[in-house]
């Protein structure tokens, strides 16, 4: 039973077709990897789900969450879904966290808005969340600012922010690309663990097939605005049916398929 279903999603910006009919299914407790080279439309797919496409983009198709089509939802209701039911993590935590707001502020503000928590409750939950994403000394960390954390820690903060309102779906857009190789594994392990523990449906957008093979349950491969292949990880990565997937795999350094 799919939790979030994307069907025939089309996006054009300035007359140029970016997505040409994308279909994807996300299920609880599963990590769905979305692969493809830059410009293939994988990031746009993630943004389109939450209606975060750039100024002037046109969208058609369906993005269904339960009974609702997110693409036709009125702004107020869409805002309740954003952060509340579907959360997002962006590529570079150095730019996706506001540099002038404390970590605590950025974790608690949407909790208080979506869940109606008081200041104290929200703070207690924020400390708990920071602990959950393995930030050392969460009591102290909560009053600090993003620039006082390392890149990997910042991405953990961003994950804590995303988890704050206990969403059902998590869209992670290249969550490890901007991080040092040494901390990438930790962040991925965290994501995988959270997915299992919290029964999250995760859409993991990445161009890195190594990342993909480490954590994804299902893999979809995108090219030029279309999903060219989709299936269980083992099948897609070991025995690709589409020539483009094969080409992608062969370009992977070091590994032999």
């Amino acid at each position, binding site marked *: 039973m799919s939790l979030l279903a994307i069907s025939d999603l089309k996006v054009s910006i300035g007359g140029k077709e970016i997505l040409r009919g994308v279909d994807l299914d996300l299920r609880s407790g599963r990590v769905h990897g979305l692969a493809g080279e830059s410009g293939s439309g994988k990031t746009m797919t993630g943004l389109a789900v*939450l209606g*975060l496409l750039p*100024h002037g983009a046109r969208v058609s198709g369906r993005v269904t969450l339960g009974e609702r089509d997110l693409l036709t939802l009125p702004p107020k209701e*869409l*805002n*309740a*879904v*954003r*952060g*509340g039911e579907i*959360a*997002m993590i*962006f*590529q*570079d935590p150095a*730019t*996706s*966290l*506001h*540099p*002038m*707001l*404390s970590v605590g502020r950025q974790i608690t*503000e*949407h909790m208080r*808005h*979506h869940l109606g928590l008081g200041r104290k409750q929200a703070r207690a939950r924020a400390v708990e969340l920071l602990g959950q994403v393995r930030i050392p000394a969460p009591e102290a960390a909560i009053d600090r*600012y993003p*620039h*006082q954390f390392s890149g990997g820690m910042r991405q953990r903060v*961003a994950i804590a*922010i995303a988890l704050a309102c206990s969403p059902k779906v998590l869209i992670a857009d290249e969550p490890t690309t901007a991080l040092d190789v040494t901390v990438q594994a930790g962040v991925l392990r965290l994501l995988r663990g959270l997915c299992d523990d919290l029964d999250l449906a995760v859409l993991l957008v990445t161009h890195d097939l190594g990342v993909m093979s480490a954590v994804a349950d299902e893999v979809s491969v995108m090219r030029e605005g279309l999903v060219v292949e989709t299936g269980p990880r083992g099948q897609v990565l070991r025995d690709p049916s589409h020539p483009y997937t094969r080409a992608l795999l062969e370009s992977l350094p070091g590994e032999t398929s």
Partner: protein
Amino acid sequence: MSPTSVPSKDLKAGTAPRKPGRTGRAGHRSPLVRFLVRRVLTALLLAVGITLVTFVLTNLVPGDPVSANLGQQALGDPAIVAQWRAEHGLDKPLPEQYLLHLKGVVQGDLGMSQQSHRPVLDDLAEFVPATLELAGVAILISLVSGVAFGVIAALRRDRLSDHLLRVLSLIGISVPTFWLALMAFYVFFYRLQITPGSGRIDPSMSPPPHVTGLYTIDSALSGQWDVFSSAVGHLLTPALVLALYTIGLLTRFTRSAVLEVLGQDYVRAARAKGLPPRVILLRYVLRSALVPIITVAGLAFGSLLSGTVLVEAIFAWPGVGQYAYKSATTLDLPAVMGVGLVVGGVYLVINLIVDVLYGVIDPRVRLQ
């Protein structure tokens, strides 16, 4: 004797294009304290530079204060000329004159004005508050409306209101202030008679008891509400005339600052969190945009002081602009130097305020 002899290493920190997050070498005190100490030191050095510039300007130029101050007949008499020069310390060598001047400044003695025959300090104490009141009200008006217009233009990008605000703000920065002052005076006072005339309060009233020198505040403090409303009424037109240029400037600048922030990742991240648009605008966008806006507002205050010279002339506003004009045209050197010190000082204070505000807004300046 050139102003460049000011030690420049420290000056650089204060005057280089400011980037948040630039903090100095490690030390034992808190970064904020070190930051402020460095700013104040920088300010003091620049202050010395300013006295030098005013001194050099007023002395190394061909204008002759003697001929500007003495009548034709007196000029013909070398004895009178020599006596006048000795009286005003003009017979000593220049470096000595400068040191004498600097010594005086430190002791709070700015010399005697050759025009008013009063200590320059007394003159300034009388005229500076009037200008500060005018410029202060003008900068408040400009900040509030300029930022509001700029935000509106940015949010309604490429729509009619944006284009309209663009044209209006360009008109704002293109209007000659002195002409606008005259037009406003003619239309609103002379023709329509809906604004009070020149001066700071109604001529039939006496100024409120001196506390700050700002009539609005002083009259409010002493509870003279008729004087207060008269003072506000007299302030409004010249302040609006003065503000038009800075409103235009801040509108344009706020628009581009806000647009730049709107494109940032963290704004998209905030939208992904489902925060209401109003919260995103106020907490996420404006906070970041405020840093460049404050920089420009600080610079805009300087252009307001420029404007006062022209506006005060039309509205007979007894401020430092008029005083500067009179002392410049009569080459009243002590008075000119006094004015130079005041405007330089205002520049330093504004810079200091701007710097402190950076620290307040941006934790990267405040913390390491």
